[in-house]
């Protein structure tokens, strides 16, 4: 290996006695202090600061409006325009889920149901939010476009059971999603 000899920088007298740098440093820190007190720190505007530094103060102020299109929040199930649950219990998301957060219990649709030809729907659909890593693989793998990552991100609970989203809760978060796959709709 080639030896590289490093030369220490030659300092002149002013640099050696260090005071110039100290004063410069004081100016730097004080400028930051004054600017952040006035809410004029660099980047305060683009970060939607609370008026003190660049920080947004969370419970009162939220970043929700600034969330990007591709933001991955909580996974949720959606229904289509007829109010049919899109999920057909193929369990692909359950298999792909890296942390194994999804648990599906399939159920056969009875023959007298208007959607009988769909054949299956989930009886239970649980997503354990203490496990979910918001990777979005379930959304990617779903052939029915039934599961989506929404922009909700505030989930907290006092027990593990509270942190498991069941089917009802998942549909609550997901809501209706229209104009996607329409293969089960006979009218179209």
């Amino acid at each position, binding site marked *: 290996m080639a030896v590289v000899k490093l030369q220490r920088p030659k300092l002149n007298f002013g640099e050696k006695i260090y005071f110039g740098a100290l004063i410069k440093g*004081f100016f730097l820190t004080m400028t930051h*202090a004054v600017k*952040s*007190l006035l809410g004029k720190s660099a980047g305060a505007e683009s970060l939607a600061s609370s008026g003190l*530094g660049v*920080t947004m103060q969370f419970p009162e102020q939220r970043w929700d409006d600034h969330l990007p299109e591709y933001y991955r929040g909580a996974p949720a199930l959606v229904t289509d325009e007829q109010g049919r649950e899109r999920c057909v219990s193929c369990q692909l998301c359950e298999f792909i889920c890296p942390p194994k957060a999804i648990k599906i219990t399939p159920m056969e649709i009875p023959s007298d149901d208007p959607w009988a030809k769909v054949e299956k729907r989930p009886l239970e659909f649980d997503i354990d939010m203490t496990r979910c890593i918001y990777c979005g693989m379930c959304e990617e793998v779903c052939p029915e476009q039934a599961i989506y990552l929404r922009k909700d991100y505030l989930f907290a609970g006092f027990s593990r059971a509270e942190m498991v989203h069941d089917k009802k809760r998942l549909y609550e978060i997901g809501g209706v999603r229209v104009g996607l796959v329409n293969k089960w709709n006979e009218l179209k």
Partner: protein
Amino acid sequence: MDLLQIAIIITKIIVLTFLVVLPLVPVCVYFERRFSAVIQDRVGPNRVGIPLTLLGFKKDFHFFGLIQPIADGLKLFLKEDFTPAHVRKVFYWMAPVLTVVPALITVCVVPFGSPISLFGHCEKLVIADLDIGPLFVFSVASLSIYGITLAGWSSNSKFPFIGGVRSTAQMISYEIALGLSIIPVLMYFGELNLSNIVQQQADHGWLLLPLWGHDADHTLTSKLLFWFPAAIAFLIFTISIFAETNRMPFDLPECETELVGGYHTEYSSMKFAMFFMGEYAAMVIGSAMIITLFLGGWSIGFGLDAYVAKLHIGDFYFGGFIHMGCFLTKLIGFILFFILVRWTVPRFRYDQLMKLGWVVFFEAALINVFLAALIVAAPELKTAIIGIGAVLLVVLTAAVIWVAKVSEETPKVLRA
């Protein structure tokens, strides 16, 4: 000594130590956190307050997070007080106390304000009006070295030990510069009583701001001439106080990157809090000393002090309390300066620290003593003698700088 006097002394101890200086410690911590936050474009702790929303009200009271230190203290108090099995129990328990107590003892010579008087009874706002003020502070404050050293040694673990050794070396080294640097000040005032030093500054201008109260003994020229040694002394003293209190940029005894937590690595709960408290109390006392010696102590300045001292309601002369407010304002200001330094200046290397103490400050303080002596004695000396003194001083300075330069180790060239 009658009962009234004892009662007055006890009242002063309780009020000044436990109601003025000790609460300043959490205030320091609060300022440290908020000020550093503001410097770094953050917000800092601004939430802890009275949670009225829990009781069904619409809004919480935050008080800008001023209650945060209480929450911090409560947290430390409620934490598990863990004593590792491998420590030397007696010294391990003694060490935190030895860091806090000396810092609080030194409070007793700090003059907090001008005398107040009630019903013709005049009382100085200082616990013990000793005639050896600064010496007392140095002698007692240096006891806190024992606390840190014992903490490092009794923890029986390598990082605390290194921290303890470092702090011993550092604090003893800087005590020399600390003591030597104020000799010019003491020469100028001809006084070791801190109350009288402050009174002189109130009458004839602060040491670093001598702009009022000129008379035959205190001419403006002599005061301005003495400003230079005073400024050097102020610089050395202030920086030495930083080293003495183990504050940034000299906090090598506890530098986290090298020594985990330094001498208090093995401490938890309230014992750790006591180190913390001792450190901040030392900082408060250090600032108080700097203010008292160089920045006029409780004096408001600009010739207003005599007027304030005369303010009274009937028999009650309350000017002292106004002066006390002034002193505390200056104190907080200086503490903010301490904090600003901490968040501005990066940490020194240990050899740089030692070199700064022994090679730079020790010599500079010595030369400063001679310079101050020359300036103080100048009015009574003949011009020729002053000239000779000045030449000697220049030669001495040059010699010291030369020796410092020659003795500086040049890195050996390993291969040509």
